[in-house]
């Protein structure tokens, strides 16, 4: 066994060294390259519209609301791994809310500011661009929770709602992150840091699956030697994972206390801008997309929406993969955007 394994070690080490050398030569590949324009912006956000040409106006529109905790470019990682490009291929006019990095002056920006003000401005702007009065929202992860709150508060502005890997019930048994942060003194943390460092959150996410996201990922790199395309994808993913923006302190504290700690949304106790957020006020059709192997937002956390939403047209779509795979895997590219587009187009 020793001789065989000695050889195995040498081969593995050689392959890994080759991958590392090739990776170093790649530099930082571009991400988020699908053509787009900024159609509206304000303090804390930009509203992007993808594609070009007059035919967009005839397409069914969708406004993507991404999370604050990472960059939205994972939805447009590279041409062959782009949920956004596939949605356009499926005939949708895609808008995206891009949250900009908070500065020192934004420490007091609240969750209500993000949802009731900034997101509302984006919805109005998209409506204006499209000459329409309502939008189709596609909320992703934390952005899905934002979209749920928005749809509950601004029922007259949302035509259809799609939630993707969205936490709704934050206190399900398998929600590790929620379990961990329930004892964190959030007010003190925010007082200390002002804006919460993105690196802190990033490390916390990795700590949820330390063996897989640490050791396995690195060793699997050995398989990518001499495969330029897969190495580029690896580099893009690493770049995206490491590039976590800081979080506006007050909004972070609001989200953590209201949702992770108190689970206010499903308890009907959430208040934003002085208004009660009730999920049973959402009467528009909902498509709830969740990932069966999601370690960050367990399916149980997402599927709780069925129990609480007030709509009668509620659809679930399960994806056999994880929280990141649902954005970037080849399987997801083939499966999710066409289903989302078909669901929307059937309800226009």
């Amino acid at each position, binding site marked *: 066994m020793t001789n065989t394994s000695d050889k195995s070690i040498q081969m593995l080490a050689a392959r890994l060294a080759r991958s590392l050398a090739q990776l170093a030569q790649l530099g930082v590949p571009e991400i988020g390259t699908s053509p787009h324009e900024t159609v509206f912006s304000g303090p804390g956000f930009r509203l992007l519209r993808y594609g070009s040409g007059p035919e967009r106006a005839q397409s069914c529109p969708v406004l993507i609301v991404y999370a604050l905790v990472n960059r939205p470019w994972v939805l447009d990682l590279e041409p062959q791994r782009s949920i956004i490009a596939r949605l356009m291929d499926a005939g949708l006019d895609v808008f995206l809310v891009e949250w900009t990095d908070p500065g020192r002056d934004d420490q007091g920006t609240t969750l209500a500011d993000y949802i009731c003000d900034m997101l509302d401005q984006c919805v109005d702007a998209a409506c204006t661009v499209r000459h329409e009065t309502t939008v189709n929202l596609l909320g992703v992860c934390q952005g899905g929770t934002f979209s749920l709150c928005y749809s509950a508060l601004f029922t007259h502005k949302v035509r259809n709602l799609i939630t993707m890997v969205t936490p709704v019930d934050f206190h399900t048994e398998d929600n590790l992150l929620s379990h961990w942060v329930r004892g964190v003194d959030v007010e003190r943390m925010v007082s200390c840091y002002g804006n919460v460092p993105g690196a802190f959150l990033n490390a916390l996410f990795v700590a949820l699956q330390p063996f897989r996201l640490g050791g396995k990922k690195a060793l699997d790199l050995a398989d990518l030697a001499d495969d330029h395309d897969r190495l580029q994808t690896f580099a893009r993913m690493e770049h995206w994972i490491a590039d976590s923006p800081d979080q506006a302190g007050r909004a972070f504290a609001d989200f953590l206390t209201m949702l992770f700690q108190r689970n206010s949304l499903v308890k009907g106790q959430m208040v934003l801008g002085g208004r009660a957020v009730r999920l049973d006020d959402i009467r528009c059709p909902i498509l709830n997309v969740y990932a069966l192997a999601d370690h960050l937002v367990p399916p149980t956390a997402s599927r709780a929406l069925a129990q609480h939403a007030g709509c009668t047209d509620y*659809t679930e779509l399960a994806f056999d993969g994880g929280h990141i795979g649902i954005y970037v895997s080849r399987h997801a590219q083939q499966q999710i955007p066409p289903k989302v587009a078909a669901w929307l187009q059937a309800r226009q």
Partner: protein
Amino acid sequence: MNPTPPTDWTQVLAQLQSQFAAALSHAERASGARPLPDLGDWLQAFSSPTRATARTAQAPGLAFMANPWPGGVSPNTVDTDRGGVAATRYQEALAALQQAWLKIGIEAWNRLCDAQTINEIPDDLQVSYDRWIYYGEQAFAEQARSDHYAGLVSELINAQVALHLACGIGNEPPPDDPQQLRQALAEAHSREANLRADLEALRESHGRDSASSPAATKKTRARPKPSKKKPAKKKVTKQTARARAQKTVPAETQGVRKKVLKKKAQDAKATPGSRQR
């Protein structure tokens, strides 16, 4: 049937993994390539359970907890007394969490040993690593879901914040003023009373409108016991939700869901060490 006694192969495997770590380190230096952060530590941690004791704190994904200055934060000034207390608290919190990681590391190693004893030891070293990752995640998931582990994580975060505050980074939150809290509570009670009065007025007004409207009268006649309350929302159980979903999911989507579930069942049967792409 595995002809190799577990203790022997464990030692061999540990030795080989250590050699691999050294070979990797040499390869990184020779190629001049950007090293993968912490991979060397990771491999060292794997090389033997006793060495894991010392190295697990530096394993990827856990390292942030052993770093008191994440996110580019750095100490400005240190209040010696406060700093001493905060530093002790931080060290104790870190030590407690490291103890939990040690337990996880040993458990992962033991499960791997058991699996390698029952199953054939693979020639491909990467398969052994994958098995170790699998059992590591398994052991980690069991521990990490416990209240005890959650308490350790939150205490370390709180201790780290306390240490930073003691070092002059940021400000303590203003203490709650009992007088202000009492006032806020009184205002909330007042708002609630106003809302209840508004609601009652609305109900009365709605009742009068209903009584005077011919259509409403007709409705009232048709329904012997009309309720003024908003009809209770039909409780959506998982079963009804599923039935509703099936009703509204396009046929194509249903097919996908069925396939997904079937695939998952197949995956569940796969051996733990099988490579996942």
